[in-house]
């Protein structure tokens, strides 16, 4: 009793949260002297009004799906992995190394290798905090966030001192050879005779992200390991009593989580930039936390939340471009409000709503 019907939990509460966030954002926009209705129109049109907008929206969504799934998987074991930023960055490094130093004849060969490398590098960065948590009890929140800094320092060092193309001034690697070029949405659309904006960075990785969603769903709800992860997350003593090894579950969950975050590198490094630049993750690791929270750690929810954040990112960028009064910081405020309402202030909506449903049910009886 006292629990919500499922549809209210997965759909109604996020929608109310989102509406509240948009209303407060609207007030902020109004306060700086712009028309909020018009702002929303620009954002929506910029995000989904053209294939160019869709291309960027889905590109960002792909990033957020990977980092969101990473947080979601760990969260099923009640492990809070906030190292997605660093893991994705290092995953990008793995992808870049594979693409730069092996002369691939065709992308179909380069892609599996890049997937492996990205996952491996991401998992490697998650392994140390996982081990410290499992064996030493060092809190995973603290260690993963500290590892973000280690990853970023390592990347800067490598880009400045090792990977930089000789004679070039900016700290970035050379462009990947043609054989490592993933088909973009433009290429894929032309295979089936459709027209898609040439400049959008959306690429084949989007489908890998969808596959990853399915795989995570299968893992968590259809395998023995997934059951163990969930059991461990619900109650560690009960799981141990049932013969589940907590060290193994912590390690495996975090490795999967890190690997998922690392896969983001395929999209941003191999798919879009085609070279490794500083800060290739662009905060997607942290957005992943909000995506997982909003998606209730379910792959379908993560997918939808990632789509929403993709729209916010792309639409926000367009709004900043269109309205000089709306600065980049304003867009951050709007995104921050969405995260605040969907993540942190979740109970603010949930508790009254639970009460309401309880009363409705009581009245019906």
């Amino acid at each position, binding site marked *: 009793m006292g629990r919500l019907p499922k549809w209210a939990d997965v759909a109604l509460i996020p929608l109310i949260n989102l509406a509240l966030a948009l209303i407060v954002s609207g007030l902020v926009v109004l306060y700086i*002297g712009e*028309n909020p209705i018009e702002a929303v129109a620009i954002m929506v049109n910029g995000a989904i009004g053209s294939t160019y907008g869709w291309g960027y929206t889905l590109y960002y969504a792909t990033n957020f799906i990977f980092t969101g799934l990473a947080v979601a998987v760990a969260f099923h074991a009640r492990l809070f992995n906030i190292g997605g930023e660093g893991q994705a960055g290092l995953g990008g490094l793995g992808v870049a190394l594979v693409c730069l130093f092996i002369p691939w004849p065709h992308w179909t060969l380069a892609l599996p290798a890049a997937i492996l490398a990205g996952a491996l590098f991401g998992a490697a960065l998650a392994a140390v905090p996982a081990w410290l948590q499992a064996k030493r009890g060092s809190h995973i929140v603290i260690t993963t966030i500290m590892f973000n800094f280690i990853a970023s320092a390592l990347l800067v060092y490598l880009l400045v001192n090792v990977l930089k193309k000789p004679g070039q*001034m900016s700290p970035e690697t050379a462009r990947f050879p043609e054989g490592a070029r993933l088909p973009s949405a433009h290429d894929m659309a032309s295979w089936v005779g459709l027209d898609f904006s040439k400049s959008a960075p959306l690429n084949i990785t989007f489908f890998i992200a969808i596959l990853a969603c399915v795989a995570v769903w299968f893992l968590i709800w259809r395998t023995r390991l997934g059951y163990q992860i969930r059991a461990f997350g619900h109650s560690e003593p009960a799981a141990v009593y049932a013969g589940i090894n907590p060290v193994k579950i912590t390690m495996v969950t975090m490795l999967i989580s890190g690997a998922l975050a690392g896969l983001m590198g395929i999209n941003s490094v191999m798919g879009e930039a085609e070279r490794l630049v*500083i800060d290739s993750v662009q905060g997607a690791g942290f957005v992943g936390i909000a995506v997982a929270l909003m998606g209730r750690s379910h792959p379908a929810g993560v997918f939808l939340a990632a789509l929403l954040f993709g729209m916010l990112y792309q639409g926000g960028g367009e709004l*900043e*471009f269109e309205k000089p009064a709306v600065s980049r910081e304003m867009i951050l405020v709007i995104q921050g409000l969405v995260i605040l309402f969907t993540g942190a202030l979740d109970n603010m909506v949930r508790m009254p709503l639970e009460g309401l449903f309880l009363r409705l049910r009581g009245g019906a009886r």
Partner: protein
Amino acid sequence: MTVFKTVLGAGAALAMSAVAALAEPGLIIDLGGKFDKSFNEAAYNGAQRWVKETGGSYIETELQSEAQREQNMRKMAERGANPIVVLGFANASTLERVAPDYPDTNFAIIDMVVDQPNVLSIVFAEHEGSYLVGMLAGMKTQTKTVGFIGGMDIPLIRKFACGYVQGVKAVDPSIRVIQNMTGTTPAAWNDPVKGAELARAQIAQGADVIYAAAGGTGVGVLQAAADAGIYSIGVDSNQNYMHPGSVLTSMVKRVDNAVYNVFKAGTEGTFKPGFLLMNLANDGVGYALDEYNAALITDEMKAAVEDAKAKIIAGEIKVHDYMSDDSCPVE
């Protein structure tokens, strides 16, 4: 009521801007920010001057991170901005890829050469301007020690340093030049705290004139120099006004003129892609003399520098360009 007015006003503004949105020039402000009082601000001022003189409007956006370059450039082009000015060497590899996708759009890049049929590459002879301010520093120093603080450690900034050292040594070869770089990533363009720290370290080593070639980081250098009561030299924009009596001069790099000219040529239809060198001869670089530093520069100093300037233009003095062979003949 206010809300209603806002709604109406915004609607009207939108309607108006929709009419004027044909082939405006675009400017992408680089990392460091619009108001870095240096490189980016010079570009912004150039654009503003164009706005004031022609009454036209342009599209402007500010980069927040390395990874946004491509999207911002494409967004500008998709929006129909023409010509589009991008600032700084870091845009080169992105522009090389974006420019061919928009053959009808003209681009101009400052500080780097991009070989594409629709790109104008504008580079400056910073070593010549730095040579002149180096001479002023050499003539001004009492301690026979001067400093140089660079932003990001790249060949371009070493070009500034090398020209500066040559100028100092031309006055007196026994003067010591302390050189520091702020960092190795683009974050080094916007770190005034570290700039001030480096300046204080150089002051502790006896430097009494410090040249900051570090974008927004230089603000901290100039402040630290003013606090310690020594001289500093600004860069890119004329920064003499920031601490009158302490800023000896500024090595002005007329990024503003470059942006202004590109905007003007672009909207008048006279834009020519290719290569443009801005040096002492065409006033692309120089040293700043105004009411804020008039008391600091004596007539002899001015005469010596003007003499050197004439000789550089005439080719009698050859200032070594670090980027020509990635080395500097003097330390």
